[in-house]
């Protein structure tokens, strides 16, 4: 196991702990937006997808990369937009009748 991999593992484990601390404070009321919002964050795979789609080494790798970009982008855009749509519905007072 290389030193590089160990560093990556350290980052991974510490980030998991941060995740547990932060997420545990989210109230039940917001768990659905939390899921869709964290879904959007997992769309960060877009970075990897962009790199393999843009390297242009082999045609197959490019095709796989483009599909991956599309998948991850649905995740990112869909996740953030739908989360915003939900969160704007949460109000302290009933809205005046439209």
């Amino acid at each position, binding site marked *: 196991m290389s030193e590089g991999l160990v560093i990556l593992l350290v980052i991974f484990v510490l980030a998991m702990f941060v995740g547990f601390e932060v997420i545990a404070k989210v109230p039940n009321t917001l768990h659905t*937006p939390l899921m869709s919002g964290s879904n959007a964050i997992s769309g960060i795979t877009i970075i990897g997808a962009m790199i393999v789609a843009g390297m242009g080494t082999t045609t197959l790798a490019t095709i796989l990369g483009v599909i991956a970009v599309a998948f991850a982008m649905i995740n990112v855009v869909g996740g953030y937009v739908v989360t915003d749509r939900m969160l704007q519905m949460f109000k302290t007072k009933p809205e005046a009748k439209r």
Partner: protein
Amino acid sequence: MAGFIELAYLVAASLFILGLKRLAAPATARQGNLLSAVGMLIAIVATLFDQQILSFQWIVVGGVIGSALGLWIARTVKMTAMPQMVGILNGLGGGASQLVAAAVWHRLMQPGAILPLDTAVSIYASTLIGGVTLSGSIVAAGKLQEIIPGRPVLFRFQHVLNLILLLAGASMGTYLLISPGHPGVFITMNLIALIVGVLVVIPIGGADMPVVICLLNSYSGLAAATTGFVISNHGLIISGALVGASGIILTQIMCRAMNRSFTNVLFGGFGAVSKVALAGGTVGPSGKSAQEISAEDVSILLAYARSVIIAPGYGLAVAQAQHQVRELDELLEKRGVEVKYAIHPVAGRMPGHMNVLLAEANVPYPKLLDMEQINSQFERTDVALVVGANDVVNPAARNNPNSPIYGMPILDVDNARHIIFLKRSMNPGFAGIDNELFYNEKTFMLFGDARDSLIKLVNEVKTA
């Protein structure tokens, strides 16, 4: 330049964490989501400066298609269908990770390229987790959408088969480490991951899908993290770990709310269990009859009550009756009745689902109380109105050790002075268990579609 890009990823990851922190309160949550989105934008823009990227046309093509589809789904999806939507998004995240792994593998298989051991292991992990997430999520979404039968699909040696497949996948990965350059073996490994995903989710009953969606949410994060290991990217690893942690916490919460162990959900097949329980432990003497009540009488009870707690279940959402509930709530509040909502963690089809459905119907969120907050208030409540819920208010969970739901935390509606059930019929809930509360002398049944009944109640309260 590389240092600048790494810093941009650090900024993005920090914004994700800050964004998640702001999700701790509804007042700041929207801002938090925006922060998180800004973080993502920074990450994407920074990546465009990556020297490994030689051409942008294909990135743009994929990006535009994905954005358009994502926007369209997000704008048009119904709030009741949110679990399916989250399921599909989980799957796409996993799929993206699997595809990136395959693309990197293919590139490193070219003559002259070398595949370092660490990268190879990461690629195989990403393939397995990504593939399981993709196919598992599609099956879960299919079950929620009722395209695939929601009942547990069980067959003999299911778990043995899963184990064999996983072992086969792992040994193929090991084989490829020793002797790389066999595309056939790599493709088979990808297929195995997809098959395992299907086989893992198919035996789980529709009612347990909330747990599965949470678990797959976690997997989609872990898949992103493994992609980070494949391309040695810190930003991906941090973000993926955050989502992985989030999914794990939610999975635990849902398991606790259903009083099921995690392994029981995964290997259970709850529908099959409850059939046995129904034959064995029929609660109370059979043939007991519940007291029926008219909408008029219910409206009088409600209109002259001081406090009312509404306990909504998924039946409410199925009947699309959220708006009628809110209307009734407003009428009662105008008469000086205090109205609150008791939200059981599994009231919807995913964690927090019922809160979103009621928020959509314009119910202010401070009126929605969690089980722990509201249970002590039932004894001071005049009327508990149970709409489309059953198992989550069944006292058997507290006092009948033979009941399959024994030990599950429930809403203590039985402590209220009067309990009104809005129900279609006397049919038991998904667990197939009778509810002794139906036969309590304080309990009255208003039969009919929840929406129709609520419309009647609204009209009656107006004239009361």
